[in-house]
């Protein structure tokens, strides 16, 4: 698993606000596709209408849940990145084709999914680095083909399951049963319960 956009995203000042700009989102997504698929012998095409639809859907849920950032900021960053991944999987703006005949190169098993995950992972890692001044190392399971196969099968049925998958890669406690409900996330529930007890 490669996350090639992190150095470039880190150079953007105030990334958490920049990512809410449609033009920046489109530009950085395309750049990430170029970097992620480099050397893969693949040609890619991004459907602009689908990409914009995924952004608009993400924006709507971002505004609906942003109050939860006051409860646990780090968890909200992971959740927002997960929502972005879920919308990318749902609208599926990227298509790829082999640029060389079969057999010459073995492409990534699911290059489109790898491009979506590496983008959202890159954004989350960079925002956390800018916000909290620490970098999150990727766990070993990021390179486990079984995890990727499971991810691909699960999000085909329910794109929202991309949220707990990204949580795993970011070291955050996932919520597999109700992945789209921010209030049901373990970190949010723990802090809310703590506040009630106090």
């Amino acid at each position, binding site marked *: 698993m490669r996350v090639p956009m992190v150095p470039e995203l880190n150079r953007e000042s105030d990334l958490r606000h920049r990512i809410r700009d449609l033009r920046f989102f489109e530009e950085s997504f395309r750049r990430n596709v170029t970097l992620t698929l480099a050397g893969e012998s693949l040609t890619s095409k991004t459907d602009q*209408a689908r990409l914009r639809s995924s952004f608009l859907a993400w924006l709507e849920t971002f505004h609906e849940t942003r109050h939860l950032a006051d409860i646990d900021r780090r968890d909200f960053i992971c959740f927002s990145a997960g929502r972005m991944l879920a919308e990318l999987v749902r609208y599926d703006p990227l298509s790829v084709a082999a640029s060389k005949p079969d057999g010459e190169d073995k492409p990534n098993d699911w290059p489109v999914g790898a491009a979506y995950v590496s983008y959202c992972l890159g954004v989350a890692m960079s925002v956390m680095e800018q916000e909290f001044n620490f970098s999150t190392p990727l766990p070993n399971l990021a390179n486990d083909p079984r995890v990727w196969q499971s991810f691909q099968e699960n999000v085909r049925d329910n794109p929202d399951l991309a949220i707990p998958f990204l949580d795993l890669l970011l070291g955050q406690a996932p919520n597999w049963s109700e992945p789209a409900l921010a209030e049901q996330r373990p970190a949010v529930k723990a802090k809310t319960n703590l506040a009630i007890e106090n």
Partner: protein
Amino acid sequence: MTPPPRAPFPKDLDELAPAPLAVKDALRGLRRKLSDVPPGLEAMPSDLLPLSPLALAARLIRETRKIAALGEDIARDVLLHHRDEARLAAFATSGFSKMAGKRDGSFRHDFAASRYAAAKVVLVRLGYPDAFLLEQPIDVSWRALWTRVRSKPRIQNTGDAVDYTIIAETALTLTKSGALAERNTPPTEPTLAQLTFATLGLAEAVLAHSPQPALETVIAALELSADVIGLRKSVISAIFSGFDPEAQLAAEYRLLAPPLAES
């Protein structure tokens, strides 16, 4: 008994102001009717049929089309002294969200002229370049909005730098103005007028985040707004047919405008 002499001018100058727009809209209507004539008739060589009624009709259509085109050019360039680019450039600063300190006359003219030009750009982007759009109803909407805005002080307690509510109110008023002829659309789909004027509102809200937008910025904002509104047809349809469309549309602008503005 002789009737009393007529006053040389209407008592209220507002009655006179839309006259050039009425002439322009009439000419636009004439040109549209002429464009519906079968193309074969216009192209028919009249020299081959010098005395036939068909040949006479073909010649008449050709000549009337030229007169109508000339008339609209005169109305646009002589009466109003504005070309499309100048009209578009005025779009960002001629909405009710930017009305502070403006004189009625120039504000009114810029509002109608720029919204007409902007709606043409949006209609092309939405895929309806031949939609029949009228300017006078936009001008009439200005009067209605002006009266409403002046009569009620606007209290903003939303914390917004931009008055999204007046932009939404403008979009709803223009939609109902009759400026854009309705087409048959399924009940679940927004009408072309709803899409067009919701787009103008979004573009105005987007441009309110730019200090002094250039012409290219205005056109880019109109086109991007048309694309985005086109992607949110179901939301727009629900807003227009739902409870309190003004508040809902203002909320939609509040959500979408900052991410679409040039940073």
